[in-house]
């Protein structure tokens, strides 16, 4: 899990997203245990209340669940749930922002489409 605290969004959101990324990239598999609040807080040197707040977001969204006295685990079905959520955010966070930046640089719609094609080619190689 990689966090970037230079990012100025609240830390609890970044913690939640870090765990989500871990789930999406198979670092934390469905049914498997994730690090404890203490481990997360000590590793990233953050207040345990902040770590808990981030984790609770994921519990509310039914991405992870707590087993009393044992720890926290990734819920089955978490991956597809996250994919759906991230797909919705993809348009807002990437597509809209890209078009905005392109506008500043006077990049046309055709040029963007061409660039995307080129990006796919690069990715395949």
């Amino acid at each position, binding site marked *: 899990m990689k966090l970037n*605290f230079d990012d*100025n969004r*609240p*830390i*609890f959101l970044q913690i939640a997203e870090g765990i989500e990324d871990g789930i999406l990239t198979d670092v934390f598999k469905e049914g498997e245990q994730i690090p404890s*609040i*203490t481990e997360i*807080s*000590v590793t*990233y*040197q*953050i*207040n*345990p*209340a*902040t770590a808990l707040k981030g984790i609770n977001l994921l519990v509310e969204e039914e991405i992870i669940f707590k087993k009393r006295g044992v720890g926290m685990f990734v819920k089955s079905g978490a991956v597809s749930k996250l994919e759906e959520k991230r797909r919705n955010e993809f348009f807002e966070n990437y597509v809209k922002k890209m078009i905005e930046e392109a506008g500043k640089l006077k990049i046309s719609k055709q040029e963007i489409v061409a660039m995307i094609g080129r990006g796919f080619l690069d990715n395949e190689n």
Partner: protein
Amino acid sequence: MKIELKDVSKKFQDTQALNKVNLNFEEEKIYGLLGRNGAGKSTILNIIANRQWASDGQVFIDGQSAWENSQAQKKVYLMSEKCMYPGSMKGEKALKWSAAFYPEFDLDYAKFLADAFELNLNKKVSSLSTGYSSIFKLIVALSVNTPFVFFDEPVLGLDANHRELFYQKLIEKYSEKPFTVVISTHLIEEISQIIEEIIIIDHGKIIFNESCEELLQRGYTVSGPINIVDRLVAGLNRIGSDQLGGLKTVTILGEQNFSDLPKGIEIGKLDLQKLFIKITSNKGVNNDHESNA
């Protein structure tokens, strides 16, 4: 259980070090007590721990008066620059001495920490370097197990590795068994993610006392061409302003509710240290004479 300061004032000859300070330290929270040199941070901590007396006002620890009350003082530990041990005492004996005063002192944990920090307990306390002297006092503070632990400049002279180790041990300890932690330091960025509550003191007065996250959310910058920025921020609570050529950046403290941003305007965030600097150094930005755009 909490600590309450009620209208606490402190005068040194003709200097008003504290001016009617009202503060609560609640159970099981981590506080950052921030202020510039001479703002009154240490005076607050020393008054709570009975090392100085207040000229006026009262301090209550768990409902009891803190002044010359050893029952109340047993609930509090203050780690500060001042060494409270006879200089000729060896580290190991000084730990045992602390254990005699604080019934919950965990001697095994203290020795474990000494090992982790590579502190030689056979050395006399007075012969330790600045860094190791801080480390020795930190170890005591992390081992006393009092409900309230105050750290006044805890990482003085510590190298980066030891500072990180201290923060890790503090969080580990706190997350296993929460207690009230108050950290007063100038290394603001190092503690900004650790503290939950923030108290800023300036010239003996408390000027901020709120959740750290909320304070960070309220601080932001508006940058762009001078005339547009000036128009946008008119009437807002401006706490700082910088200009570079035709580009102006104004720091605002308050709710962010721009419905639609004009082209070329960017909203930025501040880290705690930058926000602190703006809050405690730039006075009267709001009163700057500005043309009516």
